[in-house]
Each structure stands twice: as structure tokens, then as C-alpha cells.
């Protein structure tokens, strides 16, 4: 294990994190909310720790192997969350260290689960930073670091693969740093478009920014206790519904559309699966909750928004869906096991994986009738290797296993009921945000013990980094000296 290389790279990335706090500092000075010192202090600490790591530790061997790549990614996310939590602690918004850490992990992993006791009267800069972590975490901080530090290492594939959503890495141009640049330009442009649209619906610039970050990163932090519902702005809800869907699709697709390959780009099989699932669930949920609201229009408004919010793993809410009929709740819970598309900013197991599993299951059933039939699975117009199928199956097993183990561990608190504990674990691994019961859209995670908050933080990180980089941290292999 080349620790020097890992430390050197981590130093560079943490310096970048210090830079990402500057906008929040500016907001603090702009609104004069008095929280500026917490950012100055954190930036100072970051520079103090990161600069020596970056400047003084020089690795002899600069090639990043898979193990160093995984370790860099996982440590990077843990450290980023630790430092990102400091403004919450210093400003007194969340004095408990575990609370602040939970909130920051929830931000960076674009989960959107919160322990914030009250929303009113909090410093605006802290609320801004809380949501800005969504925007950064959505596309990935390591991907961002490749733009500013393109020579961070010769072999960056391991870093990006560990951080980007989905089983395969989709480069769009030969250079990884150029790919990162394109992804962020697309991401930034779409975010700006969303921001302008939200302004046009009548939101204040601050509200628009907060909800842009939450939507673009598919995170789900709102600056209102009752989430989007509190604003009661149908136009904004429609805009957000559309953009939650937009940000749950592959970002590379938009680049291809701009490049004029829109016909090929829209042919994507995963996209068709995704849109079909969204459409079917929107109809089903709307029909299920129609009797409750009595009006089709209201049912449609809340049904479509909630479906888009859950499948994109954002976790915004316009109503307390905790109060819906069990059938509608179950439909939403199912969506947590689907998630967004590969290469998007969303979480969950990803549509591509689920689609392949459905196809593999169908083949397995056929196989029992016709044992001699040879059938190669096809996805996106080409054959898929059986090793890929078993990899995905194993991934899903571990994924669900983590949910169950997590639910088990947080149940030890003895505070919440089975429904709450189970959905809390599911929503954290899937990076959705709200669950059901006490952790529903209008509730929060504050009732859990420190231990449970740490468990849930690990679950969120594992979900965002797609399990393996976080499992690596717990593996003795990585800490053994060669």
C-alpha cells in the first residue's frame, strides 16, 4: 500500500474542499448572519492539515493501483465529511459532533436525511453550505478535483469508477480530466437553467439556490421543515419534478445530445426503462391516492412529485406521504430499490442494474423449460457477459444485506418501531432521505442515538460509493503492510 500517494492526493482534495467553502463564507458576509467565523476557522484548519500533506509528502511511485484508488476515495469522503461538519459545530447549529457528521454525510452523499431540530432562524450561510454539499457530492468531489488537479495521478480510472454512479465507467472523451470537465459543464449549465426556472416561478433567490442544489444533486435538503410543501407553489413543484427526472439520467447523454448525436443518445435502453418505470409508478400512485384527495388534479400533483422525488433519490416532499394508504407507501418503498440511472447524480442500486437483473431472471425462468436454449443477455444493443450478471447479483445481495444489518444495529436503540428502523436503513443506503414512520418526510433522524447515527452515516457513504470502497475500509488487506 502506497500511503504516501494516498496522503498526497487527500491533501490536494481537502484543499479543494477549503475552496468550496468560500461561497458559503461570502453568503455569510452578504447576509451578515454572524456565522462567518465558523467558515474561516474550518478553512484555516483544512489548509493547516491539507497543505503539508500535499506539499511535503512526495510519493516515489506515482501510479495509483486499484487498492490505493479505493482507499483514496473512501478516506476522502470520510475526511471531507468530518471537515464539512465543522461549520455546523462551530456555529452552534448542531453542537453535537455526531449530529453534525450525520448531517454532512447526508449532504455529501445526496441523501437528505436530517437531524436539524428547527429550520427557522438558522444562519443562512450554514443552510447554504448544507445544501451546497448536495451539489458537490452529486457529481463527485474527486471528479471535480480531476479538473483542477489533472495530474493528480496517472491512473485516475480507479478514482472515478469508485465515485461515479453505476457498475461501469462511461468516459465520453479520451482524457479523464476532459471527461470530468464536460460532466461539470453539463451539470453546471443544467443547474443554472433550473435556478432561473425556479426564480421565474416566484421563489426568492435564496430559496431557489437551496432547491437547485437539492434537486441537481438529487439530495433533498430543503430550508423548510415541511420541505417543498411549505412553499405551496405548484409551478415550482412542476419545475422540480421535471428537473429531478433530468438529473436522474446519465449526464453524458446531454453531452451527446449537444454534440448532435441526440438520436443515439435517446435510444439508450436504460433511459427507456427508467422513463417507463417513472410513468407506470406515477399512474399507479396517483390512482391509489385519488380517493384520499378526492380530486384527480391534487392526486396527480402530489403523486407525480413524490414518485419523481423518490426514484431520483432526492427525497423532497410536498405532502406527508407517511399518511398515505399502505399501497401507495409500498409503491414508494419499491422505488427506493430502483434508484436513478447509471452516470447520474442519483443514488439507489441504479436502473441499469435492476433492468439487467429482471432480464437475467426472465432468462433463468425460460431456462427451466428449455434447458438447452442458449441465450446471451443483451443490454444497450450488445451482449452482456455472464460474469457481469453475477457481479451485479452479488452487489445487490450485499446492498440488501447492508440494509438489513444496518436496520438490526439501529434497532438496538429500542426507541423506534420496526417500520421506522427498516425504512431508515433502506433510505440511507439508497441515499433517498426520508423513510416512513418517525423518519418520514415531516419527521427527522434526531431521535437516534450517537451509535445509530454513525451506523446510518456509514450506510449513506456505502450507498453513495456503491458499497465496495467503504467495505475496503473495514478489510484488513488494505491496512496490512504489503
Amino acid at each position: 500500500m502506497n500511503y504516501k500517494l494516498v496522503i498526497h492526493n487527500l491533501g490536494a482534495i481537502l484543499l479543494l474542499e477549503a475552496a468550496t467553502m468560500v461561497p458559503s463564507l461570502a453568503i455569510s458576509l452578504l447576509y451578515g448572519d454572524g456565522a462567518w467565523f465558523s467558515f474561516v476557522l474550518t478553512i484555516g484548519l483544512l489548509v493547516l492539515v491539507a497543505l503539508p500533506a500535499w506539499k511535503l509528502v512526495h510519493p516515489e511511485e506515482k501510479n495509483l493501483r486499484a487498492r490505493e484508488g479505493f482507499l483514496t476515495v473512501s478516506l476522502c469522503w470520510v475526511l471531507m465529511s468530518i471537515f464539512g461538519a465543522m461549520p455546523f459545530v462551530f456555529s452552534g447549529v448542531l453542537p453535537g459532533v455526531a449530529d453534525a457528521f450525520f448531517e454532512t454525510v447526508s449532504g455529501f452523499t445526496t441523501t437528505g436525511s436530517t437531524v436539524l431540530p428547527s429550520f427557522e432562524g438558522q444562519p443562512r450561510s450554514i443552510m447554504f453550505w448544507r445544501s451546497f454539499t448536495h451539489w458537490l457530492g452529486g457529481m463527485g468531489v474527486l471528479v471535480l478535483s480531476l479538473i483542477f488537479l489533472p495530474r493528480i495521478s496517472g491512473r485516475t480510472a480507479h478514482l472515478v469508477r469508485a465515485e461515479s454512479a453505476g457498475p461501469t465507467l462511461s468516459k465520453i472523451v479520451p482524457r479523464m480530466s476532459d471527461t470530468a470537465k464536460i460532466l461539470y459543464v453539463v451539470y453546471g449549465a443544467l443547474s443554472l437553467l433550473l435556478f432561473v426556472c425556479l426564480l421565474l416561478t416566484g421563489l426568492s433567490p435564496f430559496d431557489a439556490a437551496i432547491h437547485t442544489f437539492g434537486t441537481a444533486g438529487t439530495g433533498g435538503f430543503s430550508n423548510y421543515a415541511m420541505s417543498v410543501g411549505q412553499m405551496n407553489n405548484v409551478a415550482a413543484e412542476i419545475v422540480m419534478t421535471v428537473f429531478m427526472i433530468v438529473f436522474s439520467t446519465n449526464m453524458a447523454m446531454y453531452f451527446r445530445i449537444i454534440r448532435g448525436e441526440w438520436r443515439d443518445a435517446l435510444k439508450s435502453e436504460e433511459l427507456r426503462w427508467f422513463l417507463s418505470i417513472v410513468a407506470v409508478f406515477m399512474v399507479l400512485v396517483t390512482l391509489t391516492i385519488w380517493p384520499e384527495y378526492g380530486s384527480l388534479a391534487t392526486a396527480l400533483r402530489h403523486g407525480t412529485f413524490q414518485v419523481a422525488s423518490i426514484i431520483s433519490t432526492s427525497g423532497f416532499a410536498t405532502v406527508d406521504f407517511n399518511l398515505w394508504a399502505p399501497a401507495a407507501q409500498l409503491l414508494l418503498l419499491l422505488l427506493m430499490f430502483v434508484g436513478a440511472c447509471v452516470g447520474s447524480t442519483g443514488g439507489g442500486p441504479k436502473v441499469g442494474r435492476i433492468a439487467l437483473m429482471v432480464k437475467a431472471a426472465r432468462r433463468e425462468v425460460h431456462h427451466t423449460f428449455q434447458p438447452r436454449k442458449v441465450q446471451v443477455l443483451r443490454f444497450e444493443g450488445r451482449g452482456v457477459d455472464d460474469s457481469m450478471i453475477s457481479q451485479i447479483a452479488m452487489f445487490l445481495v450485499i446492498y440488501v444485506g447492508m440494509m438489513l444489518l444496518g436496520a438490526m444495529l439501529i434497532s438496538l436503540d429500542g426507541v423506534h418501531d420496526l417500520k421506522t428502523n427498516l425504512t431508515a436503513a433502506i433510505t440511507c443506503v439508497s441515499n433517498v432521505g426520508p423513510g416512513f414512520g418517525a423518519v418520514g418526510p415531516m419527521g427527522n433522524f434526531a431521535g437516534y442515538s450517537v451509535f445509530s447515527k454513525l451506523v446510518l452515516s456509514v450506510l449513506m457513504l456505502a450507498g453513495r460509493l456503491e458499497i465496495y470502497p467503504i467495505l475496503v475500509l473495514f478489510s484488513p488487506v488494505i491496512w496490512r503492510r504489503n
Partner: protein
Amino acid sequence: MRILVVGDGKVGHVLAEQLTQEAHDVVVIDEDEQVLQRTEDTLDVLCVRGNGANAKTLMNAGAAKADIIITATHSDEVNMLCCLIAKRLGTKYAIARIRDPEYNESLNILQQELGIDMAVNPDRGTAVEIGRLLRFPFATGIESFAKGRVEMVEFRAHEEDAIVNMPVHDINRKLRGIPQVLYAAVERDGDVHIPNGDFVILPGDKVHVSADMVTITAYFRYLGRDNMRIRNVLILGGSRTSFYLAKMIIPMGIHVSIMEIDEKKAEFLSELLPEANIICGDGTDQEMLEQEGLQNMDAFIALSNRDEENLMTGLFASRQGVPKVVVKNNHVSYLDLINDLGLDSIISPKTITCSNILRYVRARVNGGGTKVEKLYRLMNGKAEALEFIARLNDPYIGVPLRDLHIRPHTLVAVIVRRGKVFVPFGNDHIEAGDNVVIIACEAGISDLNEVIRR
């Protein structure tokens, strides 16, 4: 430039690696998912899975906007077809690896009709390289740069050579009449040193000197190394390379014996090369080698298909006192081991093919991006030669080199001024517009101002 590499084999991989390091955008096309996975993990390139001769695959890889396509699959036909289609799609230049001697006979027509700008034949390229070594037997390796106007010759220093055991700056002062060459690099125990004036060359060092060919020849005459003429050559293995080599050196008046184990192949060679002495027998059999007069040979060349066999027989020939031993070896990882064994001339067809292709690609680069005009990798990548153009307003212009600060472990090796090549010494200065070649141990130099300061 955007470069497509079709075929992610040994040669394709090395090319992709080298070209990304030279700041090109590389797309690698191959049918094998696993091979591509490995490449994606280790290199910063775009990987496209598919058959390179399929227009759709080429389109996906961006052939319409590509500058160069290099085809290095195992099949000549696929290589040619890829070039043809890519050219039609809009790729500017096409390079194909073509192996089969049948195609080589009609290469001109093929190249014209299919739009192949350069056809690379690894077997012939290897033969040319060996031929060069036989012509200059004192050298263990020859590399040329600055458009072939400067040669860098590698040789092993012996106890009786006048240049050993004295500091480099004393060589020209104390040895009267020695032609002035540049001591560009010295390899000792696997490490590369860029010698400064105080560096002492020891017997056993691998010395790299650089100058134009006339000066180099005079230099070796001064050292008394040119009295050896190669007259009798024994080649192990009747491969295509052996055939090309024999065909090339027989007219030079060299007597060639080829040892081939396969009877059919031996007969075939005998038919094609009536002047050569073809022996059907096992070349790894030491008794057989001795019987065929190995001790009386001036050169032994091991070109069988197995690297290990080549190395072992080469070692045996070297112990038997054959003055010049050339061994074919494709395993780069063996090279450091071989260094210790005393085998000097190791030829790798893979490397030769790559450097031939890279030479062509570099000639098409038009300066963009970094200030490095050209980059050559020397000594299996342990050192680099970089070519820059001196700019008018740079601070070092017109100042004698001895008054400038030169970065440690780097060397101003050659200056090309108005087409004339010379090796600079302390009194010389750089003029604006000069092509300056720097030799450096470390990678990543991108500007002449990083090397030379006032």
C-alpha cells in the same frame, strides 16, 4: 491529436501508453472486453469495444474527426480494411501493420489503393535494425533523433578504452585528436546517469555518445574499435526476420548460415536463399552449434520464437567467444536481468515496431499544446530526449553555455542551426530559432526555460 489505435495487443498497448504521455487523445478499439478493461484501468484513454473494421465501431470511436489511425491487430487483412474504412470516414492518416511477405511484394499498389500512408512490417523493421548493428559492430544499440541527423550510439566501455577512469571534461583535453562527441548518458547497474564534467566513466559502463554519423565513425576509429568486420554470421531460427536479414546482408558480402529445426521451413529457405548455408537442426543443441563452427563466427543472431531459447543460446555463444551476439527478446521485464549477463545487443521487434510508428506520428505533430517539439524515449524509457525551438525573447539567447545555469541531471545535447548539427560546448551559445535537444533523466520537462536559466 486524436489517434485511434485498433488492436489492443502488445504493440497497441505500448503505443497507446506512449501516445497519451505525449499529450495525444487516444481511443483504443478491440473486441476483447477483458483486454480493454485492463487498458482502461492503467491508461487515460477511451476504450471502444468492437471490430475495428466495422464502420459503426469506427464512427463511435470518432474516426470522422481523428488525425491518425494505427492498426495493429493480428490480421493483416483487418488492419488494411480498418485503414480503408477510417480513411473514407475522414481520418487524415492511416498506419497499418502488415506482416505477410506476400502483401509486401505489392505494397505500393495496396498502399495507394487503400489509402495507407505507412505500412509497418515488424519482421523487416527488426531485420533492418539488426543489419545496422552488424554494419557498426562496435555499437550495442543505435538510436537516431532530430530527423535522423543525430545518432546516439551505445557501447560498453572496456578497460583498454582510452576514455575510462578519467573525468569527462579531461577526455577532450588530454586525449589529442579525439573526435568531439557528447557523452549523453551512462548506464551503470541499471541506473541512468547524465554525466557532468566530473563524471568518471568506468570499465563495464554502457556509454551513450551522440554526434552525427561521420564523427561517430571517426570516434570509434580513434578508440580502435572499428577493426572488426563481420564476415560470418550464424542465425538461429528460420523466421521471416531471418529471411529479411539474410536477404539484406548477403549482398554486403557476409556469409550467412541459418539453423532451422523444421525440415519444411529449412527447405523453403534454401529455395529462397540459394547463397545461404541452411542447416536443419536444433539450435539449442550446443554440440550442434559447435559442429557448425560457432567459434569461428563473427556474429551470432538468435531469432527463434522463444525468448528464453534466444537468451540461453546467445549466452552460450557469448561464452564461446563470438564477438557479436544479437538476441531477440520481446519481454521488457527480462531486460534488467539480461544486463547483468553481459549480453549487449538485445532486439525487441515490439519496441522497434512501436518506435517506427511513433516516429511517423511525431513527424505529424504540429507543435500545439506543450512547447516540446518532439520527444524521444531512450534506454527503454529511462531517459528522454526533448527537442525545443529557442524563442527570440528567452533570456538565455546569445549567452555562452558555460555562463548559464543548467538544471542538474539534464544536458544540452545537440543544437541544430539552419539544418546543421553540432554538439555544443561551453563556448557555444543558443540562437533564436535553433532546435535544441535536451537529454534528461526525469520526465515532465515542458519548457526550455525550465532547463536553462541565466
